[in-house]
């Protein structure tokens, strides 16, 4: 697949320079986003009907269940989205599109009440027609004291869900949230029939369950009554559990499967040099970071934080850890594809002089200890050592402490002042910022407590005026880049690979891997 190689080689340096040039940025990104997936030809081609699509995916477990409330990993997301639909979906541009809903709007000016109008004539796999009560039942599945759903957190602000008409659902929130509809794209929010058992896998999805062996494979066949006529091209889908990276690659290369996920960056060149293989990228879906606790010395000094931000060589990290894939971070947790990304903030580059200047201004403190294990993010130990070397050139001594991977998230993260961490990029700016930077957020890994910040964040949440909202998010990003404790050197692409026969892949920013885990209904098999 020559297109991948040439594009990434040309694109990476260009793009980095462009990051400093606000005007051209969006053009570069949209071009990159469209072209990166690999064979541009396959994207443009018309869908082919029929065939048996085989996926070889990581992260399956024998303890998996079909009930969406219990999904935790990519394998079940991908199987789940074959069977179930959500009310809304994320589109390829990172914006919401209707799935089971044809329209949705805030019913009150403070965005605390939302009305969703469902499409008519949609059928479940058992023949029952979809009505509002099914949605009410399915969303309530994640609510209440007894629910142990992974989607519970998304619906905590919901006080009431009502079927206000046969095809209309009204959701009431305890406080306004302009981004609330985005909660309904979550993998856990699959819709099943009222009163039904989700473990039977009966949904409205593009495929009907034939066989499910947890941790082994799932077999589905096309739903002839599927509501989205432009999707679901293949006759049947087999999703095979393959937890070993080499086994997945071997299966793809030997033609046993059509698509694999979780390709390691260092295997990229090997794979893309093979004939008949295309690389499927989901851009900037994970953030690698070194959070500093701003309530602990010496990181409570903003100059020291700046010194460290200048002392890390982001380009070098990208080259060695990601083999040139992904993107350089700017200590801004909002990914560049997000509509609210502040394009005008200049990209911070490695600058030993500036690092030394701020370090002196902070009083040249000692005792900077970075605690890492490869659980923080893959390659974080190497990254810490590179960081140590580049900081040493600026006269800053970083002591790299290697800690055990076991228990890293319990014992080290949120406890030690300077560690490695990673986050899946959330689809909305609000989700990302309130997840890590709200004063009371349980995962506030930089101990960022700023009343003004919290107020602005809350204001943006209920602000329905786009221009005002954009301005607030812009200011919050500037604040984090200049003063925040989060050092974000890299954004990582999710890499998957497919046989060149596979067409129809579209990246879904913020929706995760493999076309937002909807690859089964997006893909087709060229003869």
């Amino acid at each position: 697949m020559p297109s991948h190689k040439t594009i990434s080689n040309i694109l990476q340096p260009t793009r980095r320079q462009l990051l400093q040039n606000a005007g051209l940025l969006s053009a570069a990104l949209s071009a990159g986003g469209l072209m990166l997936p690999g064979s541009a030809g396959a994207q443009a081609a018309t869908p082919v009907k029929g065939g048996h699509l085989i996926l070889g995916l990581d992260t399956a477990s024998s303890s998996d269940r079909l009930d969406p409330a219990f999904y935790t990993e990519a394998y079940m997301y991908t199987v789940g989205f074959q069977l179930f639909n959500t009310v809304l979906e994320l589109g390829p541009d990172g914006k919401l599109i209707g799935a089971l809903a044809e329209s949705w709007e805030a019913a009150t000016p403070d965005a605390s009440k939302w009305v969703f109008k469902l499409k008519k004539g949609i059928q479940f796999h058992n023949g029952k027609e979809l009505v509002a009560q099914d949605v009410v039942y399915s969303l309530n599945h994640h609510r209440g004291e007894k629910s142990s759903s992974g989607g519970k957190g998304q619906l905590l602000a919901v006080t009431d869900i009502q079927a206000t008409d046969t095809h209309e659902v009204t959701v009431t929130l305890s406080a306004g949230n302009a981004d609330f509809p985005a909660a309904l794209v979550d993998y856990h929010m699959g819709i099943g029939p009222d009163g039904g058992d989700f473990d039977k896998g009966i949904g409205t999805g593009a495929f009907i369950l034939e066989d499910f062996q947890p941790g082994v494979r799932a077999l589905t066949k096309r739903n002839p009554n599927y509501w989205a006529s432009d999707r679901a091209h293949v006759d049947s889908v087999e999703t095979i559990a393959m937890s070993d990276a080499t086994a997945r690659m071997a299966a793809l290369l030997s033609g046993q499967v059509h698509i694999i996920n979780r390709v390691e960056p260092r295997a990229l060149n090997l794979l893309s040099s093979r004939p008949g293989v295309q690389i499927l990228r989901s851009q900037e879906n994970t953030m690698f970071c070194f959070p500093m606790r701003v309530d602990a010395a010496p990181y409570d000094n903003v100059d020291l934080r700046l010194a460290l931000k200048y002392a890390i060589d982001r380009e070098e990290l990208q080259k060695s850890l990601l083999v040139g894939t992904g993107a350089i971070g700017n200590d801004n947790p909002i990914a560049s594809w997000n509509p609210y990304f502040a394009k005008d903030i200049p990209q911070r580059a490695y600058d030993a002089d500036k690092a030394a200047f701020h370090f002196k201004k902070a009083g040249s403190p000692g005792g900077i200890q970075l605690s890492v294990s490869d659980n923080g993010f893959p390659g974080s130990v190497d990254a810490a050592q590179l960081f140590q070397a580049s900081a040493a050139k600026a006269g800053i001594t970083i002591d790299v402490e290697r800690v055990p991977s076991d228990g890293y998230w319990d014992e080290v993260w949120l406890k030690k002042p300077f560690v490695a961490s990673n986050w899946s990029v959330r689809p909305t700016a609000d989700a990302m910022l309130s997840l890590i930077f709200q004063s009371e957020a349980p995962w506030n890994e930089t101990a960022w407590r700023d009343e003004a910040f919290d107020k602005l964040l809350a204001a943006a949440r209920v602000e329905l005026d786009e221009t005002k909202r954009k301005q607030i998010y812009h200011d919050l990003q500037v604040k984090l880049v200049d003063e925040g404790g989060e050092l974000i050197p890299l954004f990582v692409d999710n890499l998957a690979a497919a046989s060149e026969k596979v067409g129809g892949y579209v990246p879904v920013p913020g929706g995760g891997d493999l076309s937002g885990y909807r690859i089964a209904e997006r893909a087709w098999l060229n003869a």
Partner: protein
Amino acid sequence: MGGPPLADGIDTEIQAMSPLPAQKTSGNSLWSLLVKRLLLGLLLLWAVSLVIFAGTQILPGDVATSMLGQQATPEAVASIRKELGLEQPAPIRYVKWLGAAVTGDFGRSYSNRQDIAKSIAPRLKNTLLLAAMAAVIAVPLSILLGILSVLYNGTWVDRTIGLVTLSAISLPEFFAGYLLIAYFSVAHFWLPSSATVSDAMPIGQRLVVMLLPCLTLVLAVLGHMMRMTRAALLNVMASPYIETALLKGLPWWRIVWKHALPNALSPIVNVVALNLAYLIVGVVVVEVIFVYPGMGQYLVDHVAKRDVPVVQAAGLVFAAVYILLNIVADMVSVLANPRLRHPR
């Protein structure tokens, strides 16, 4: 190889000299030995069940908290603990669990609420099938190679066999597996690299799909058994009665097959049993590489989720397999060597 008729007469004579069964064997003592062994095995299994239960209680992390993860509130944890009956004291839970397990009821999995006995059955079948396939190839092959290397002791045949089997044993299984995949699947498309078998698969296709993992396992166990065969045989071959047989002009193959091998059988059978047990309980890595739906992967998945009933059930099954195979090995040794029936 037709020897002179005389040779057979000598043969019988020697048989009487060799310690092989000439005396009247007491069938009763053999049966009582078997019963004794089985009872001992049951006792051992019971002890193992105690250890397994205690071990799973000591495991850090509670199933309720690990099921809920970040959403764990005290109320939710309490409700799950109640639902799973975790609030009862451990001894009562042990008695209940053992009582049910004896009747073949291992309860339901905590994490996906499925009947464990039903989920384990196909996995165990797959594991046993793969182990059996590997054993059918590896056991005769290793014994044959062992005999060959004794027959040609010290020659290039012996050295080649030794070198090849030793290299095979030294390769870590995952590496041997990858090598086989690289050659047979990626480079030549001869055999499939993954072995996701299902019951719907016709048996022929199933065997083909299982060939690569089976070969990997054969490579892993071949060396051990072959070397034990060789060592045990060489040991016996040094005994005076073999020399006598030799001096009487018996052909080599006959000495090895009829006189040396039965006396060397006991250590060989023990090693074979150990390797068979290994083929059943120790093949997680091979299962992962070849995507084979066996017991190992099943156990590992559930340990990660703190799914205690599954871990306990799998532990019991593995222990039972181990104990049973060892009893069989003991009985075979005793049959082959009557001296063992009268321990001093």
